[in-house]
């Protein structure tokens, strides 16, 4: 199985799906001639022509709302936002149009739309560094995926493109250069709504999202050296959410830490905590611990950013606390 980067895996999924289905189109700011500000779409315009791959003005509302309109009329558009933060710029179109058009019209239409959202803190500050998945988990009608490795990046994107619903696809900028084995061929898919157990263990459940997964795996390795067996769960999809895999793990371990790059209040960890309160309280030996951004905007200077973004040490300390 070839080893490729996360960025290459995303591109592979785009190319395979655009070859497979002429109704798939891709547009956004600087995606065609320049190849995308993160170079994901370089060469696609030459492969598929400038009707199916095109540059747009700086107009996030029109990009996402246009995606809804194109999806209503038979295409499967992929809209690239330059930064996940720009979902807020297009807030009406994301939440009220993509998320609610089908429902508000009694199911008359399907909306097969993918919005690609480069996420994650890279010393670019409050408006270019967020992982805003949790904001949109609250909004009905949107599917949400956050792959943590190249294989999932490819498989989940292919599933998202073939899904008949709007999917927000969060690609973490710090993962673009990470490498991993990725199956070839257009049949390789990763289903939406199925968590992956990234490492099996018995003593503690560590749920990690997106770029937190590689950090969580390192923490698990370190704790293994100290005699603790940690199970690392990567939800992969946040909507739909695979509750069962987490509940089953907690039944075994009785302890859970959630590591995420969202703000702590009403973040993914808060939802997982509430879900466990409703479904698995009797299995929890210790209170849930959340490792998340304290409720401040993301600062720009690297030294400040590093202080607020969850790192291995913070995840390790949270786990140690429960394991002691």
């Amino acid at each position, binding site marked *: 199985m070839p080893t490729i980067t996360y960025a290459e895996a995303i591109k592979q999924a785009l190319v395979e799906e655009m070859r497979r*289905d002429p109704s798939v*189109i891709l*547009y956004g700011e600087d995606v065609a001639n320049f190849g995308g500000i993160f170079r994901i779409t370089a060469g696609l315009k030459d492969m598929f022509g400038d*009707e*199916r791959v*095109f540059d*747009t*003005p700086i*107009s996030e*509302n*029109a*990009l*996402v*709302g*246009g*995606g*809804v*309109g*194109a*999806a*209503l*009329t*038979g*295409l*499967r*558009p992929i809209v690239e936002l330059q930064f996940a933060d720009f979902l807020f710029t297009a807030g*009406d*179109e994301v939440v*009220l*149009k993509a998320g609610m*058009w*089908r*429902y*508000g*019209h*009694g*199911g*008359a*239409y*399907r*909306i*097969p739309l993918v919005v690609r959202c480069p996420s994650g803190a890279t010393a670019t500050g409050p408006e270019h560094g967020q992982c805003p998945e949790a904001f949109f988990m609250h909004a*009905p*009608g949107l*599917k949400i995926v956050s792959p943590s490795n190249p294989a999932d990046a490819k498989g989940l994107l292919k*599933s998202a*493109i*073939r*899904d*008949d*619903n709007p999917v927000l696809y969060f690609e973490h900028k710090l993962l673009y250069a990470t490498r991993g084995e990725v199956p070839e061929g257009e049949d390789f898919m990763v289903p939406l709504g199925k968590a992956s157990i990234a490492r099996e263990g018995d003593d503690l459940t560590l749920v990690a999202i997106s770029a937190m997964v590689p950090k969580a795996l390192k923490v698990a390795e370190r704790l293994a050296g100290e005699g603790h067996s940690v199970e690392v769960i990567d939800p992969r999809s946040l909507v739909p959410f695979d509750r069962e895999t987490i509940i089953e793990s907690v039944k075994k371990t009785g302890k859970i830490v959630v590591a995420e790059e969202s703000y702590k209040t009403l973040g993914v960890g808060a939802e997982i905590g509430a879900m466990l309160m409703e479904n698995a309280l009797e299995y929890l030996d210790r209170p849930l611990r959340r490792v998340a951004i304290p409720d401040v905007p993301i600062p720009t200077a690297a030294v400040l950013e590093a202080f607020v973004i969850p790192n291995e040490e913070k995840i390790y300390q949270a786990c140690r606390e429960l394991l002691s």
Partner: protein
Amino acid sequence: MDNKLKLDIYRKMLLSRRLEERIAELIKAGQVGGFMHAGVGQEALQCAAIATMRPDDYLLYAHRGVAYWVARGIPIEKILCDLAGKEGGTNRGKGGVMRVVYPKLGVLGESGTLGGCFPIAAGAGISIKVKGEDKVVLCFFGDGTSNRGTFHEAVNLSAVRKLPVVFICENNGWAVSMPTERSTAVKDISARAAGYNIPGKTVDGNDPEAVYAAVKEAVDRARKGLGPSLVECKTYRLWGHWVGDPENYRSREEVQKHWRRDPLPRFERKLLDEKVLTDESRAEFEAEARATIDKAVEFMRSQPFPKPETALEDVFSESTAG
């Protein structure tokens, strides 16, 4: 415009007017719980513009009135069921009368937030262009809505990509209680077309023939792949913003003045003068409209409310591209 088309537009204007009058009665009598933004006074432009469409074109209507749906041929009993939140309509109680939808005639639905229509219209235009079709999109909006940022984004995008969208502004002078001259820096919305380097034209929105000619020109242009246009139809909102609006923000004299320009009797007089319409045929159309509406109201009354648990349906489609 040939006589057949004139009569067709007249019939639809008349049916729309009578339907709104009946809806207002039903709402005031508490017989339906819906919410209605009446379009009384704007039927001429709505019916005439939609008469330019082919069955396979796309429509994004605005929030003012029933004439868009009547003109497009959506059965009126469905409109009434949507108003009442009942089964038998087009959206199963999910969207009310503001989200009437009809895929087989390209009626894509309505944005609850004003100005949400513009990006959707541009997106439908993208579809048409990618597939190499010669369909067009008609996108209606009010003078007030033209101040949304989405207008700028979508019209500019449509212009640079030469998308087949015709933007039709219904300038009725009022955005709820805000008169256009206080909300909008230009006198004519069509002047904004210059900012996008597209054709912009203002016509008398109460003259169906003028509207038809202007919209037809824009539709033909879009169909040929020459890009979007902006057509502004000057008209007037003869009723309040909603059924029940106290209208304490405008004078009775102003409203009375505009009732004298009501497009329905005006077009009627013209057709009578031209002998396209006779007193007998006019009476027939009135009777036909009344009978159609009576039957539709009966159908609406006979329909059940949706089962409460269906509120959980229609969030996601279960299907995939396979």
